[in-house]
């Protein structure tokens, strides 16, 4: 053996050792169960909320109230707990992708905020598990459940099991700008009773220069907002639901009416801005434009009132100082009086967000303790102190909703007439097919043709035998 060969062997052996050592270190980095009660513990939570941006009130509440209060309460029990908030401030679709990837790779925060409509597909993927499977029987004994109605609990349930704690209920209305209405000679207290009334008001608003008369969410860029604040509230106004008696809605006459309204607004009469719904940040732009007094009518949820145009400091991301005097809200009318689902004159759609426990959590008991703490009556009182929203708890609602006319309106007028999305795993794909149908209509494709490709798309997703083509 000559010398250079020796050196070569030694060096490659050394390189191997370094690599193996690095691997070994990674492998030995497994969690060590902490036995001592005073050992420091960490519990984390993530939500699509960030201070100074999206859902700022929730983020502020978490860092300013939940974190210190929960840490203090734990300290009183002799536990050294640190609460970590992992904020996000992105589009809902991106947030959903992020948490799906987190959960798929076995990571993620201990408590995860999510839209109730995602629960089914996440549960089927095995990413989340029923609360009592993650944290044990203590979940079912929680004293908060009797305060949350069955309908609200259902928003975070799947196949009869509770997967998360709901955050509240919501509803959708037609917002309108009273100053623009006055300018167009429209009444300050506007109560449209049919789609024709809404179109008439939009035509009147069109006379004002530089104003988009009505913005109705459309297109795939807006994601679920298109379905929830566009297609579905209109669809229930024609008397049908997306999923009924085991069948999904196909390219029926009713869907044709809905798409026809899109066509009237965006193509035939140019009452809406067809570009805005294609922009990557179209929904945020529609918020900003409404807040700037450039949009006459906007179909949105109470979220828009609470978290977008809310003038309170640091709460809304498109605050309107004159929200309370200048923004009106009206029930969404059915196509014609009495034509809505169940023969209703007015319709709406509701969803619900909530928080689930991460099955990968290293300390699920502590995570549940935090989750229960966040859903206590005190926590909700603090949560709604700055910005009132409809909480899931009946005891808190009874105290706080009196303070906000808009949310009382939602709670009393809308929740009784509202409809919910089907919590099935196929829903997100059907929802995407509906969004694509609106894209095609706004791009000028004839409604009949769009209906045909939509029924084909739905049949591809759920199987032709599960589609009702009317």
């Amino acid at each position: 053996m000559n010398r250079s060969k020796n050196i070569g062997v030694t060096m490659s052996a050394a390189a191997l050792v370094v690599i193996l050592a690095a691997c070994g270190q990674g492998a030995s980095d497994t969690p060590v169960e902490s036995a001592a009660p005073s050992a420091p513990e960490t519990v984390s939570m993530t939500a699509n909320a960030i201070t100074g941006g999206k859902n700022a009130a929730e983020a502020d509440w978490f860092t300013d109230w939940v974190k210190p209060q929960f840490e203090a309460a734990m300290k009183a029990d002799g536990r050294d707990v640190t609460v970590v908030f992992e904020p996000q401030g992105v589009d809902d679709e991106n947030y959903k992708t992020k948490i799906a990837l987190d959960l798929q790779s076995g990571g993620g925060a201990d408590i995860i905020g999510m839209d109730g409509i995602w629960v089914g597909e996440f549960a089927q993927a095995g990413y989340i598990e029923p609360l009592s499977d993650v944290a044990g029987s203590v979940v079912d004994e929680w004293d908060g459940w009797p305060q949350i109605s069955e309908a609200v609990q259902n928003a975070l349930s799947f196949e009869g099991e509770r997967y998360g704690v709901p955050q509240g209920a919501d509803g959708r209305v037609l917002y309108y700008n009273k100053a623009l209405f006055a300018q167009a000679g429209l009444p300050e207290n506007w109560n449209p009773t049919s789609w024709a009334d809404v179109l008439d008001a939009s035509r009147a608003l069109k006379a004002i220069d530089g104003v988009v008369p009505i913005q109705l969410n459309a297109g795939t860029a807006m994601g679920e907002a298109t379905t929830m604040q566009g297609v579905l509230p209109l669809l229930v106004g024609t008397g049908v639901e997306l999923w009924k008696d085991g069948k999904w809605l196909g390219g029926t006459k009713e869907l044709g009416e809905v798409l026809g309204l899109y066509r009237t607004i965006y193509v035939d009469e140019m009452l809406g801005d067809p570009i805005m719904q294609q922009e990557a940040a179209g929904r945020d732009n529609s918020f900003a434009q409404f807040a700037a007094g450039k949009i006459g009518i906007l179909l949105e949820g109470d979220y828009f009132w609470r978290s977008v145009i809310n003038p309170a400091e640091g709460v809304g991301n498109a605050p309107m100082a004159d929200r309370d005097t200048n923004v009106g809200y009206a029930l969404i009318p059915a196509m014609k009086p009495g034509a809505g689902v169940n023969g209703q004159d007015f319709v709406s759609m509701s969803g619900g967000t909530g928080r689930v426990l991460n099955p990968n959590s290293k300390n699920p008991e502590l995570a549940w303790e935090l989750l229960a703490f966040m859903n206590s009556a005190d926590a909700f009182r603090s949560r709604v102190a700055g910005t009132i929203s409809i909480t899931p708890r009946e005891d808190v609602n009874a105290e706080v909703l009196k303070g906000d006319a808009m949310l009382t309106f939602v709670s009393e007028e809308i929740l009784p007439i509202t409809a919910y999305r089907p919590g099935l795993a196929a829903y997100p794909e059907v929802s995407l097919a509906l969004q694509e149908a609106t894209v095609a209509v706004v791009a000028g494709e004839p409604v009949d043709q769009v209906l045909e490709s939509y029924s084909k798309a739905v049949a591809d997703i759920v199987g032709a035998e599960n589609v009702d083509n009317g």
Partner: protein
Amino acid sequence: MSVAMSSARVRRTPSRVDDIAGLGRVGAGLFMAPALALIGVFLIFPALWTIYLGMTNYRLTGLAAADPDFVGLDNYTQVLGDSSFWWSLRLTLVFVVLSGILGQMMLGFSIAWALRHLKGLAKSLTETLVLAAWVVPGSVGSFLWLALLDRRGGTLNVLLDSPGTAWLINYPMASIIIFNIWVGTAFSMLLFSSALASVPPSQMEGAEMVGATAWQQLRDVVIPNIKGHILTNTLLITLWTFNTFTPYLLTAGGPNGQSEILAVYIYRTAIPGGQLGKGAAISLIMLLINLVIALGYIHLARGKKKRA
């Protein structure tokens, strides 16, 4: 002296003819092992895994995420029969030809050519400006372009006095092509600057003496001298442009798929669309296209060497 001696000694031993480093088979193997292991873990395994995933109906969420089924070549027949795939491939070709080959190469060469006699401050200033676009991180660069092209109050609309023009919506492909030229020109400029420096001055002077015009000098002296550089640059730029994802930050593939180049198409199918299996199938198709491009260039380069 000692180098010559040792190489002479090596040559004397017939079994050592190829073993210039003198490591022996085992030693050389051990030397290569870490690199091969890394390549195996981070390149070959993922590639094989992609082939496997591409033959399942694996999804990001839902039942197929927990328990994917083997579907054979279904994904491939679906993708190849899908007009949106071909649409995306066509957009990608347009994007590569216009922004990569024509845009970055031509502009990079022109700048290098124009700067070749320039010295001092003017030269470093120009180079710095071009390089800045390349050095700035993609997210920052895209943000600057979003501000430039914004529909409401964007810089371009203020400059052109064209309020309300939605550049990214009305001209999505043109926007990302110009953006990509802006990003990538620096590389071609640098490569061609050094290539031009390698052209023997005597040949240039000779050409000038016999009265060759600038175009003739370019055609008959410069280009034959830097052919190899041009080929390498075209290969690298084609592959980079073909695979780039940064335009997603500007248009997100929109509106309505009008700027959905292949990398963006895969992302939208696999991640927000949740169809990981189908996304893997398209990725493999993309990988094959990459291989074909690379092999084509290698073939060209070999042919050039043989002729030379």
